[in-house]
Structure formats: structure tokens, C-alpha cells
């Protein structure tokens, strides 16, 4: 049975709980500044730029959802096409091994294929071997010729506030 559907406003609280669980799993428990109020506005406000799909939980378990995928559109200048950037994919500990992660990823592949997007892309921590094996089994390849660079915090502030020449 397909348990994947688009997120609805009632899912937001549980999605944020799962985002925190994922951050704990990724050993960054204090990294999450997101609140349910903010995510609600970002997903269902006037100008949504992100999308969420959820895996529904079995009825009677006291939970609405067992997993989610949160994504947005990126753009490849080489392809001249948009693609899907998968920011988060998470399945609750208790619901692992039931194929929900795969269903969520297949759902995104289906969206991409239907709309003519050329790729689905995401980042994974290098020590996260179980996830890497799972992604590889689905045909994903590591972009190991590339490094992601980040300009943030004080360095961004300094750079961005400097007078324009």
C-alpha cells in the first residue's frame, strides 16, 4: 500500500519533531532553530518555496506520520533544467526497514520524471554508511570530485557589509 502523500498543515508539528530526531542522529542535536510556526508559514504561507511529502503512520498508533521528505527546486546551468534538491529524508527509528524511505525517494523520482527534471540531489554525512549503502542500492552516485563550500556567520556578515567598490 502506498503510504506517501503531500504534507498537510496538521503534519507540521510531527515533521519538526522528526527534523530534530534527524539532527540528533546526525550528532547535531542543538542545530535546529526551526519552529512549527515557521515551518507552517514556509510550507503553507503565501509564497511557499519548499515542499514536503510524508509517509503516513498506521492507524491507532497515536502518530500521524512515520517519515518525511523535504525538498525544493534547484537549477542546473549545464542541463538548462530544474532538479529536485532533497534537503531531508527521514524515517522514524520504529518504522525503519519497512520500505518507507525507499517509497519517499521513489515518489520524488516520479515527480522529477513526470515534470522533466533531470536529477534528484542531496547531501549525506560521510560516516553515515547505512544511508550511503541504501542510496547506492537505488542507483545514486557520489559526486566525490566536488566539495561543498559555505560562507556563513561572521565571515558572511563582514563580506556582505563591506562597502561596495
Amino acid at each position, binding site marked *: 500500500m502506498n503510504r506517501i502523500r503531500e504534507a498537510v498543515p496538521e503534519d507540521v508539528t510531527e515533521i519538526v519533531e522528526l527534523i530534530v530526531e534527524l539532527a540528533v542522529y546526525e550528532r547535531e542535536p542543538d542545530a535546529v532553530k526551526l519552529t512549527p510556526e515557521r515551518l507552517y508559514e514556509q510550507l503553507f504561507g503565501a509564497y511557499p518555496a519548499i515542499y514536503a511529502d510524508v509517509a503516513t503512520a498506521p492507524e491507532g498508533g497515536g502518530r500521524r506520520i512515520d517519515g518525511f521528505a523535504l525538498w525544493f527546486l534547484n537549477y542546473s546551468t549545464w*542541463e*538548462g533544467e530544474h532538479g529536485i534538491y532533497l534537503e531531508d529524508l527521514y524515517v522514524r527509528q520504529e518504522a525503519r526497514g519497512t520500505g518507507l524511505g525507499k517509497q519517499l525517494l521513489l515518489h520524488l*523520482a516520479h515527480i522529477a520524471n513526470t515534470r522533466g527534471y533531470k536529477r534528484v540531489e542531496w547531501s*549525506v554525512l*560521510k560516516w553515515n554508511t547505512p544511508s550511503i549503502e541504501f542510496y547506492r542500492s*537505488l542507483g545514486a552516485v557520489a559526486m566525490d570530485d566536488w566539495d561543498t563550500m*559555505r560562507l556563513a556567520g561572521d565571515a558572511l556578515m563582514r563580506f556582505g557589509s563591506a562597502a561596495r567598490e
Partner: protein
Amino acid sequence: MILALADHHDEADSVKNTPERLRQNLFSERPHFSVHVVEAPADSDFRLNGFSLWFPAYSTWEGGRMIHMEDLYVRPESRGTGAGKALLSNLARIAVSDGYLRIEWMVAKTNEPGIRFYLAQGARAMSEWESYQVDGDALRALAAQQ
């Protein structure tokens, strides 16, 4: 310049984009990305000496938007004139004034001058993360399973 940049990565054949397609994407009703350019001097053969192309990305941890810089390119003839730094600092200015939390981009590990330049501007490599992608036949195969 997109072609020149791909050629710099030995990937000139990877560019499927065309001026028509870019025009359509960039000036559509709801464009998803932006381009900033460095104008060439009036006596130049070119209109432009460089460009940056970026789109808003999103971080669940921060709960907010960031800038993903897809391309940053300066013509070889114009390197060393501060054009690259001007393009990057323009994005930093947009980030600070419009509330984007950070700027992220990818760089080829072989691009040592590029990496040195970025590190000198205060950027750092997210070397604990690896990017993965699924495209082409693998993507179609996954889509067909759904």
C-alpha cells in the same frame, strides 16, 4: 560563458542548455533563479566579463533560506581584476540585507585556485558531507517503480 565554464571542467559536452531555454527559464513569470553580471568595458568585444547564477535554497536546521550559487565565472581575459570577488560580495550583500543565512556552492576538488580564492574570502569546505545524485536511466528506473 556557461560553456566556457563547463569546458574548464572538461565537461563541455555536458551542456544541454541553450540561450532560448535560459531566456525562457530566467525571464518566465515565476523564475526560480537569478543572474548577476559584470559588464565589460565599452571598448570590449563582449557585453559581459563574468556572471553569477544562484537560487534560494533552504535549511531545515536553520529554518530559513540560503543562497545556493550554482555558477560563478569570470572570463580568463578579466581574471585578477577583482570581478570574481565583486560577484561574490554582491551575493553576500544580498544575503545580509535579505535575510539569507548563508551562501553555499560546489567546487571541483581539482580547482585549486578557486578553492584558495574561496578560503581567502572566509568560506570553508563542508568536507564531512558528500553529495549524491540520481539522474538519467537510474532516475527513470526509480520513477517506474513507483
